[in-house]
């Protein structure tokens, strides 16, 4: 099956690059540790910030990796060549989504496991839900990365999309200023940014032992944003080009 072999191909490319694997797995854990020492003696603040970060790191990392990987497909000619073969657009989009989503799951499991087990992060809900939301966020990063790669001609340009896509979501997701205390128009922007919902979902997991309706609704919204980004991304993948 073409989708399966595409997933395998993408993961094999990753496997040939041990340094990237190490960075994917280790960096979020290191940063969470940094946060732990920053909020030394303030365990409740650490709990809140670390939990949010567990959702944000996979988004950032997967956005970057995917936009560069897809840009390479476009600039190296492999994408043009693939489009002369029986490959479908969906094989490529889901291939990247599933392969990098899997990598994100490993990343989130290590970081969340470390935060719970070693750094004594307290969250009322379980580790599994945290990882689930982190993976949804990572797949959102993959989908937006696929989309943004269409608007970059070089890797230089591609990395510039990161501050553009990530920074507003990070600033307005409620981590720095609670969303309900923002002025109306900022709240309006925050309301349409998907990361606001994944952070809210993580906050729900932190506060309640069982998954809440709000959490499922938020997760559903993130899932919807993934579908929209993939659909728009599919529209930017053209079999015929000038």
């Amino acid at each position, binding site marked *: 099956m073409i989708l399966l072999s595409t997933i395998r*191909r993408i993961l094999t490319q990753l496997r*040939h690059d041990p340094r990237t694997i190490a960075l994917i797995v280790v960096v979020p854990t290191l940063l969470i540790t940094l946060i732990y020492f920053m909020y030394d003696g303030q365990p409740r603040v650490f709990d809140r910030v670390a939990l949010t970060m567990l959702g944000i790191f996979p988004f950032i990392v997967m956005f970057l990796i995917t936009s560069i990987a897809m840009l390479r497909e476009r600039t190296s000619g492999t994408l043009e060549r693939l489009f*002369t073969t029986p490959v479908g657009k969906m094989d490529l989009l889901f291939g990247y989504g599933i392969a990098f989503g899997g990598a994100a799951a490993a990343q989130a499991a290590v970081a969340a496991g470390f935060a719970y087990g070693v750094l004594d992060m307290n969250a009322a809900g379980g580790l599994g839900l945290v990882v689930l939301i982190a993976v949804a966020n990572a797949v959102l990063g993959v989908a937006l990365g696929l989309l943004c790669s269409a608007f970059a001609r070089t890797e230089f340009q591609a990395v510039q999309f990161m501050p553009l896509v990530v920074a507003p979501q990070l600033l307005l997701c409620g981590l720095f200023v609670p969303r309900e205390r923002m002025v109306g128009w900022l709240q309006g922007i925050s309301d349409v940014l998907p990361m606001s919902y994944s952070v809210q979902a993580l906050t729900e997991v932190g506060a309640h032992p069982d998954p809440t309706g709000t959490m499922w609704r938020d997760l559903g919204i993130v899932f919807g944003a993934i579908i929209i980004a993939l659909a728009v991304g599919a529209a930017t993948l053209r079999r015929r080009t*000038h």
Partner: protein
Amino acid sequence: MDTAIEVTGLVVRRGKRTVLDGFDCAVPRGSVTGLLGPSGSGKTTLMRTVVGVQVVASGTVTVLGSPAGAPALRSRIGYLTQAPSIYADLTVRENARYFASLYRLGRDAADAAIETVGLTGAAGQLVANLSGGQRSRASLACAIVSRPEVLVLDEPTVGQDPVLRDELWAHFRRMAADGATVLVSSHVMDEANRCDRLLLIREGVLIADDTPAAVKKAAGSDDLDQAFLNLIRAHEKVAP
């Protein structure tokens, strides 16, 4: 003559430039057809059109009876781009196996293609670590892995050593003898002598479409380089 590729009134614009303007040609099935012309003459654009990845302004391109780019054609054609388009961070074997899998073919097909291009000894190496010539052969392996009925090759022998170039041409001839249609672009005129037919193209205009012998005869020169030059001059006199 049984036609594999038929191009009628093809117009292709890239940006403001008209690359092909009312281009017509036909490529017979089971032949090796050479596409010759200087760089920038429209060879690559014509090939991209045949494999169905080029936006076309007008005209028709028919491949094996279907419009170029039709989904049914995708498992029947092979395309080698001018710059090697394979994954540099995979080995030769991993690349060939991935491309084989796109046609639902297995390891045997991949290994056979690698053998054909003479890379069996380097099959386990990462493409990034290969020489330029090896890299383009690895790319060629991925184009022939499905034993396509129509094989479109953009400058497949650039940078290859003479012995290997000879072997590759022998292989293209063998594929044509087995019924495949090979459209191959080249700068090297001595390769043109090994084609069944030649398409000479300059600035998007076809200036000759015949067998090498007939082209030489029409141009009054036994040397293809000179023949090409004569044809261009004759053409410019007719159509200023």
